[in-house]
C-alpha cells in the first residue's frame, strides 16, 4: 500500500509541478468560451461586412423592400430572364433571384412556385431559407390584407404558449423538470468523461512507455511489485485529472455564478444583448426589464430543479470507474510496446467502445429510457458515458445500481487482465508484439 502511495505521489507531483499543467488548468475554462465568442464574433461581423450583389428580377412587382437580409446586397433589375442572366455574369454578381408574375387575388390559391435562384456557387442553406421566408411572409401579408381582416385581430390570433413540465415522484412531490437542461448536463458530463479517458489514458500510457524506454523500470520493479507500480501510476495520473477537474468546477462555478448575479441585477446590457442573439428579436422586444428578472429567476429555478448532489455523486463514480477501466488498459498497452507508433495498432479496439458511446449519445439523449440507452448504460465499456447522459432524465434505481456493480466488476476485470500483461510487458524489449504475444503474456506464469 505504501509502495502504491509512493508511486502515486511521484506521478502526481511531477505532473502537477509542471508549468504546462498550471497553464492548461487555468486557461482551459477561459479558452473554450473565448474560442466560441471569437467564432461568433467573426461569423456575425463577416455577415455584416460581406455584401455580395444579388440581382432580383421581380416581374410581379410585389417584392420591393421585401428582402431584409444583410448577407446580400439586393439589386432590383428589370427585363427578361435571359437578359438578366447575362447581366449577372457581366456585373460579376453573386446571384440572380427570379420572381415570376403571379396571381395574388385568388384567396384559394396557396401554392406558389416558379421562383428561381441562380448563383455562381451554392448559396448557403440559411440564406435560401431566409429568402423563402421573406417571400412567404410578403405573400402572407398581401393575402391577409386582401382578406379584409383587421391587423389587430390578426395580431391577437398569434398566441404564445409555454409548457411547464414536471416530474412526479412516488411521494407525490412534483418537481419542475427541464429537458433542455437535462440534455445539456447529460451531454456535458458524458463528454467530460470521454475527454478525460482520452487525455489521461494516453498520459498513463506515455508514463509507462517512458519508464520502459528510459530503462528504469527494472530498477523500480526490484523495489515495487509491477501491479503496485501500475496501480500507483493509474491512481497518480487520475489524481492529477481530478485536481484539474476540481479547479475547473470551481472556476466555472464562480464565473457562472458571477454571471448570473450580474444578470439578476438587470444591469448589464451587454449580457442581455448576447442572450438576445439566441432569441427571436420579436420576443426580446416584448420583454420588459421585470421579465428579464423573471427569466433569471426561471434559470435559477431550473438549476435548483436538478438533483445536483445525485448527479455529482454519480459523475464521480462513473468518472472514476471509466478512468480505472480504461486507464489500466492504456497501461497494459504502454507496457507491451517500445514506442508510441507501435501503440497505434492496439489503441483502436480500446477507442472503439468509447467512440460508439459518444456517437450513440444523441440517440440516448433523445430517448433516455429506450432499449439502446438501457443496454449501453449496462455494458461497463460504455456505461460511464451513457449512464451520465441518462441520469439527468431520471434512471430507475435498480438500473443505476446494476450498472454500478457491473462497472466495478468491469474495472476489476480489466485491471486484473492489464496487470498480467503489464508485469511481463515492461521487461520485454524489442519483442515483436501482436495480439497473440499479448495473449501469451497474459497466460504466462511469472
Amino acid at each position, binding site marked *: 500500500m505504501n*509502495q502504491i502511495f*509512493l*508511486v502515486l505521489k*511521484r506521478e502526481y507531483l*511531477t505532473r502537477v509541478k509542471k508549468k504546462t499543467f498550471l497553464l492548461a488548468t487555468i486557461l482551459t475554462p477561459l479558452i473554450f468560451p473565448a474560442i466560441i465568442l471569437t467564432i461568433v464574433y467573426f461569423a456575425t461581423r463577416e455577415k455584416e461586412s460581406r455584401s455580395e450583389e444579388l440581382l432580383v428580377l421581380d416581374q410581379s412587382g410585389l417584392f420591393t423592400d421585401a428582402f431584409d437580409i444583410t448577407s446580400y446586397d439586393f439589386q432590383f433589375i428589370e427585363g427578361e430572364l435571359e437578359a438578366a442572366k447575362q447581366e449577372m455574369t457581366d456585373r460579376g454578381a453573386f446571384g440572380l433571384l427570379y420572381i415570376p408574375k403571379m396571381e395574388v387575388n385568388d384567396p384559394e390559391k396557396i401554392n406558389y412556385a416558379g421562383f428561381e435562384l441562380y448563383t455562381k456557387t451554392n448559396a448557403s442553406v440559411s440564406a435560401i431559407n431566409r429568402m423563402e421566408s421573406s417571400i412567404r411572409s410578403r405573400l402572407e401579408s398581401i393575402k391577409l390584407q386582401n382578406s379584409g381582416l383587421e391587423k389587430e385581430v390578426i395580431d391577437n390570433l398569434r398566441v404564445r404558449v409555454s409548457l411547464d413540465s414536471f416530474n412526479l415522484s412516488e411521494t407525490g412531490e412534483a418537481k419542475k423538470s427541464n429537458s433542455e437542461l437535462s440534455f445539456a448536463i447529460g451531454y456535458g458530463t458524458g463528454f467530460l468523461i470521454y475527454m478525460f479517458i482520452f487525455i489521461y489514458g494516453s498520459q498513463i500510457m506515455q508514463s509507462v512507455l*517512458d*519508464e520502459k524506454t*528510459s*530503462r*528504469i523500470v*527494472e*530498477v*523500480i*520493479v*526490484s*523495489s*515495487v*511489485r*509491477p501491479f503496485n507500480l501500475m496501480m500507483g501510476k493509474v491512481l497518480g495520473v487520475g489524481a492529477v485529472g481530478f485536481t484539474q477537474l476540481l479547479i475547473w468546477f470551481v472556476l466555472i462555478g464562480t464565473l457562472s455564478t458571477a454571471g448570473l448575479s450580474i444578470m439578476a441585477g438587470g444591469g448589464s446590457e451587454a449580457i442581455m444583448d448576447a442572450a438576445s442573439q439566441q432569441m427571436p428579436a420579436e420576443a426580446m422586444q416584448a420583454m420588459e426589464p421585470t421579465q428579464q428578472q423573471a427569466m433569471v429567476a426561471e434559470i435559477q429555478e431550473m438549476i435548483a430543479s436538478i438533483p445536483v448532489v445525485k448527479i455529482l455523486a454519480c459523475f464521480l463514480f462513473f468518472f472514476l470507474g471509466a478512468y480505472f477501466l480504461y486507464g489500466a488498459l492504456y497501461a497494459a498497452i504502454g507496457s507491451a510496446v517500445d514506442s508510441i507508433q507501435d501503440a497505434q495498432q492496439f489503441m483502436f479496439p480500446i477507442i472503439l467502445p468509447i467512440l460508439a458511446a459518444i456517437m450513440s449519445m444523441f440517440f440516448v439523449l433523445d430517448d433516455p429510457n429506450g432499449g439502446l440507452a438501457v443496454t449501453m448504460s449496462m455494458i461497463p465499456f460504455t456505461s460511464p458515458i451513457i449512464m451520465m447522459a441518462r441520469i439527468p432524465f431520471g434512471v430507475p434505481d435498480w438500473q443505476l445500481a446494476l450498472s454500478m456493480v457491473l462497472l466495478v466488476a468491469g474495472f476489476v476485470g480489466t485491471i486484473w487482465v492489464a496487470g498480467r500483461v503489464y508485469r511481463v510487458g515492461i*521487461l520485454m*524489449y524489442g519483442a515483436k508484439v501482436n495480439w497473440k504475444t499479448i495473449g*501469451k503474456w497474459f497466460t*504466462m*506464469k*511469472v
Partner: protein
Amino acid sequence: MNILEANNITKNYAVHKALDDVSISIPKQSIFGLLGPNGAGKTTLIRIINQIIMADEGEIFINGERLQPKHIGVIGYLPEERGLYKKMKVGEQLMYLAELKGLSNSEARKRIKHWLDRMGLTEWAGKKVEDLSKGMAQKIQFIATVLHEPDLLILDEPFSGFDPVNANLIKDEIFELRDKGATVIFSTHRMESVEQLCDHIALINKSQKILDGPKKEIKDSFKLHKYSVSYKGDLVGLSSNFSASETKEEDGLNHSIIQANGQSPNEVLQELISKVEVHSFIEEVPSVNDIFIQIVEGEK
C-alpha cells in the same frame, strides 16, 4: 554462513527452459561472480532473486529465511538495462528510489548527501538527469543501488559503459562495501574484472550450473601442471615424468614449458635445479577466461 541459498531453481518460458535445476550458495561478505555467456540464464536467476519473476520450482533463502517481499530492502540491484527518470531532479530521484526501498525521508536525505559528496556530485543534486553526462548518470545509478545499505548487492554488468577512471572508482567502492559487510553478486561476461574482483564464482551455461566454488579452488582444479621456466644451460636427461616443449632462446636464456605429471612444484624445481641454472619458475595457472572458454566451447 551463506547469505543466499538457491536450491534447485527451475524456470520455464513458453519455448525454452531458462534455468534447469540450478543451486548456488553465496557466502557472506564474498564477491561472487555469476558467469555465463549471453542467454545462459543469469538475468533470469537475478530477477528471481529480486522477486521480479517467480521460479517455477525451487526455493531461495536469504540469511536462512525463505525469500519474501520484505527482502527487497536487503537487496540492492543494478540491472544491466538501467536508466533514470530523465525529467526528474537527481536529488528527488534518489529520494524516490530510497523511499521505495523503505528508507525514511530524513535518513535518505542524510545518505544522499553523503553519497553525492563522496562521488563529487553535490552540486548536481538540483539538476535534471537529462543534463548529466553518461558517466555521472551511472554514478547516480550506483548510488541508488547502495543507498539503503543492502546486505546483498546484485550488479549486472556494472562496468559496461564506464570509462576506466570511473570503473576503478566503482571497483574501489565495491571492495569497501564488501569490507563493511556487504555481499556482492557480480554478473558479467567480462572475465578480466572477475579475475580482479571475485573470490567465488559460478558458471552457468545453457540454463545449467556447470561449476561453482571459491575462485582459487576452481582455478586449481583446472591446473594443467604446466610451468614456464627460464634457465641457463641445456635441459637434457629429464626424467620421464616431465617433458619440455616450446623451447626458445632469448637474451641468453632458454625458455621452456615444462609439463609435469602431478608432481608438486617443489619436485619439479628440484629436478630442474639438478640439471640447469633456473632463473625463473612460474606455474601456469589458467585464467578464468581460459576456464570459461574451455567449458563453454566444450559444451557445444
